């Protein structure tokens, strides 16, 4: 590799590290233990769109321009999601988790990293169909306040409903999916009845602590963005939050195998990354 290329790469990596440090020092959002390759792609993408002359200029801008910081937080959020994403997971919840939840008189669920809410509403629909929703409280959290606001609204582009409906059916849904939202020309709004037992709130998995004891934690496709150390810390949060016998649901490519908390859990549906917290380790 040419000397100039090597130096350019080194400088770029230093600048991005400083940008992430600046966001942490000034605003408290901590991305220092995120996947480096991922952060770099997102920040370079923003750099090319921004028209700024250097990443160092982005650092300055992030300190003085709050709109720009909001933009960066959006870039660093995981905002790709869909209703009933991975239908086989929801099918497994219906078949294997619902029987566990039915044994509780009152059910508390923490959906961590809920993004714009599609998967939270999916769970609400499933629980309603299984007759459990009225005795369920869902805490849906994400670090990004803008995204939490979107999630609270529960309004999605109408053109996504076709895929969502297909997912719903593949997930074992038997009702008519269109009964669950009201449509106008551009958008579809989830029925308010699905919102009444959901509390949407900001919570940062990296810097905040446990806030409630729950029977189920759903956190899908969030841990893949974290390094091993941060993954372990967050799984520890979930272990602390769950009651004995409580259910932990991860994304389809995430597992507990390498976690220090591996012994705290046993598989319920291992292929779908659904685990049960043991009563005793």
């Amino acid at each position, binding site marked *: *590799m040419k000397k100039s290329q090597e130096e350019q790469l080194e400088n770029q990596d230093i600048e991005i590290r400083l940008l992430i440090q600046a966001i942490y020092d000034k605003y408290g959002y901590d991305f220092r233990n995120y996947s480096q*390759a991922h952060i770099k792609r997102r920040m370079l993408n923003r750099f090319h769109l921004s028209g700024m002359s250097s990443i160092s200029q982005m650092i300055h801008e992030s300190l003085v321009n709050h709109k720009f910081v909001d933009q960066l937080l959006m870039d660093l959020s995981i905002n*790709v999601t869909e209703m009933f994403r991975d239908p086989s997971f929801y099918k497994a919840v219906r078949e294997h988790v619902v029987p566990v939840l039915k044994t509780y008189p009152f059910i508390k669920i923490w959906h961590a990293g809920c993004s714009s809410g599609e998967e939270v509403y999916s769970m609400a629909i499933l629980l309603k169909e299984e007759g459990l929703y009225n005795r369920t409280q869902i805490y849906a959290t994400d670090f990004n306040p803008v995204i939490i606001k979107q999630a609270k609204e529960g309004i999605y582009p109408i053109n996504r409903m076709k895929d969502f409906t297909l997912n719903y059916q593949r997930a074992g849904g038997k009702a008519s999916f269109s009964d669950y939202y009201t449509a106008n020309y551009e958008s579809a709004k989830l029925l308010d009845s699905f919102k009444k037992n959901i509390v949407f709130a900001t919570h940062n998995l990296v810097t905040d602590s446990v806030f409630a004891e729950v029977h189920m934690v759903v956190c899908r496709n969030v841990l*893949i963005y974290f390094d091993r150390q941060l993954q372990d810390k967050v799984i520890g949060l979930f272990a602390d939050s769950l009651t004995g016998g409580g259910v932990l649901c991860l994304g389809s*490519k995430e597992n507990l195998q390498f976690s220090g908390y591996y012994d705290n859990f046993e598989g319920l549906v291992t292929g779908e990354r659904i685990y049960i917290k043991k009563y005793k380790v």
Partner: protein
Amino acid sequence: MTPARKYNAVVVGSSAGGLNALKTLLRNLNRDFKFPVIIVQHISPDSENYLIHILNDLKRLKVKEADEKEQPQPGYAYVAPPNYHLLVEPDQTFTLTIDERVNYARPSIDVLFETAAEAYREHLIGIILTGANNDGSLGLKRIKEMGGLAIVQDPDTAEVDSMPKAAIQACAVDYILPLEEISALLNSL
């Protein structure tokens, strides 16, 4: 002649027609092929990863889906899972993400190639095979910039020639070869 250089990994991108091309490529590798092979084949989001079974049946490299945080090893070929991008970290471990599609694709070849280029620098070999779009061109260009080796399947021999053609236009590739000769070249490096 370029001085002898030590390579540490091979990245391969393929799209339409990729299954047959990958079979030919892997079948003609030596049993003791030295470098890990990391593959992005464009694949439908909800497909079972059948590609792995088919490539494993060739009984050359051990073929598996790439796991997050996994460190690629010689003797193995890794395939990006459907609906996830596959990235290589600076410490040469894998990251999977569900970010937006790139070039309409997830997994995207550019995402793998660009991150692998920075992780392996001049020790990386990048290969673009048959395909109907231009994913991988920017990634191959990045591999060249970082000092790696760029190989493209001869468009005349490709089931679909747009992807190899786009890659050849994007950068000064080192070799343009039919599949069997790509394997032979890899065996000799």
